[in-house]
């Protein structure tokens, strides 16, 4: 663990640990590794860890914890562990139907990029994306790894309503809307998968550090997977990856 970190109070009940201001998989691994080392210490009073691209927020009850004391303890934990242990993550295969009924901006985007629709889909399905964290909406995965050719400024005027499952590109990011929401991203397809389920023990199947790959499916496959999802009988394809 070798980054220069800053430790700042964020109100009386939280500490924000910040890594350098860049988005890389190395930083994500470092954050995850640090979090798991802190968790192993079972520090009394810590209530939650929240990972983002280059930060870890730790919330705590200030009846048990004093900020300065906690910082010293965290610094010691960070310095202690110099090796980044390889740990397995899950790679999820996410079925997406890229047709123009669902991908309402697909053709316009391909035209802007001077690609054929097939080339655009190929460039979107080829990368293995990394899940950095979950935020914005319940179950919204912040993914890294979008092909630079597909980077596209957000729409000037956001749409008032985007359907749950919409697969979209905005800026240098791609993502799936987990629930109906307004949004300014370009919609290129739709996934029949449910990305958030409040009644499940783990409401999101993916967690920070996991990997995602999109798999193109036909509208017919979309419909049959959707039925299975609704019946609670669809199992995502997944593989364990050590990285």
């Amino acid at each position, binding site marked *: 663990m070798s980054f220069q970190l800053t430790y*700042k*109070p*964020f*109100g*009386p009940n*939280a500490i*924000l640990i*910040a890594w350098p*201001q*860049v*988005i890389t998989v190395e930083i994500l691994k470092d954050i995850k590794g640090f979090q798991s080392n802190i968790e192993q210490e079972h520090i009394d009073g810590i*209530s*939650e*860890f*929240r*990972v*983002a*691209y*280059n*930060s870890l*927020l730790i*919330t705590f009850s200030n009846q048990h914890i004093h900020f300065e004391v906690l910082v010293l303890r965290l610094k010691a934990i960070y310095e202690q562990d110099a090796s980044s242990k390889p740990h397995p993550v899950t790679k999820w295969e996410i079925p997406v139907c890229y047709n123009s009924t669902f991908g309402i901006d697909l053709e316009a985007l391909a035209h802007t990029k001077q690609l054929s629709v097939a080339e655009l889909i190929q460039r979107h399905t080829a990368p293995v994306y990394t899940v950095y*964290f*979950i*935020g*914005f*909406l*319940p*179950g*919204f995965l*912040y993914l890294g790894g979008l092909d630079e050719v597909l980077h596209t400024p957000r729409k000037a005027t956001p749409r008032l309503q985007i359907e749950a499952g919409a697969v979209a590109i905005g800026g240098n990011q791609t993502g799936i809307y*987990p*629930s109906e929401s307004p949004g300014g991203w370009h919609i290129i397809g739709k996934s029949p998968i449910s990305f*958030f389920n*409040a*009644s499940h023990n783990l*409401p*999101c199947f993916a967690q920070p550090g996991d990997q995602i790959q999109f798999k193109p499916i036909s509208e017919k496959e979309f419909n049959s997977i959707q039925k299975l999802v609704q019946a609670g009988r669809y199992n995502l394809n997944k593989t364990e990856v050590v990285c």
Partner: protein
Amino acid sequence: MLKVLRLGLYSSIQDLGRKGCQQYGVPVSGVMDRQSAALANALLGNDENDAVIEVTMMGPKLQFFKSTIICISGADLSPEIDGKSINLNAAVVVNEGDVLSFGRLQYGMRCYLAIQHGFQSEIVMGSRSMYQGITASQVLAQGQELHYKDSEVNLTAKHVVVNPVSNLFKEKQLKVYKGPEFDGLNNVQIKGLLDCDFTISKDHSRMGYRLQEPLCHNLNAIITSAVMPGTVQLTPSGQLIVLMRDAQTTGGYPRVLQLSAEAINVLSQKNTGQSVSFKLVQ
């Protein structure tokens, strides 16, 4: 059972919200003004986390089909039972068939209707707080029925009427801590932030309060990172947004301040056009 006969402006069931779910992108939610909600629950001998109805500006009309004891705290929306005005901050017996309605808003923004043992609505992810996509609905609906437990309806010596001495409704100063990006502001900007009054714009909700006067600054956007209820964001155009209980869990605007728990309660009782200022505490 209680039935919603007529809707108010925005009424929802809330408790102290969802803890430990923000890592999944789920907002904290819960009562906006914890002080007033806690008072209403305390006066009934309830648990602090018992679910209450948060009523905003214009109250609903509610009919009780089983006798119980209620208590209303927070904003004064002129509550009445069967046309007779009732006290705030006091346990009140309601009988089968009684109708609770609200009148003119006298002060504040939100009041809390607590009921003996709390409302027994669905618990999702450890909380009864209503939030779109988490609970079945986001607000109370016309005709909706809410359940509550049977209880003794005799007022006893423990059921006191209180006159809270708090400054909750008159206070305009919000006690704040430095946010993670505070140190990026220069002295002129800090002076502007801490010495000026800010007016509450018409854009305010359970998600956040936008303030009217812009603050000139040269802070860059940050890489998306965690935010919390009470985080004050500074947008590129200089608008300050104070995030409230239903706020998203992450954001990309610089986080210049963080409200104290007390300040979130104070702001929750403010309406469009009222002004607030920030006071840094250590």
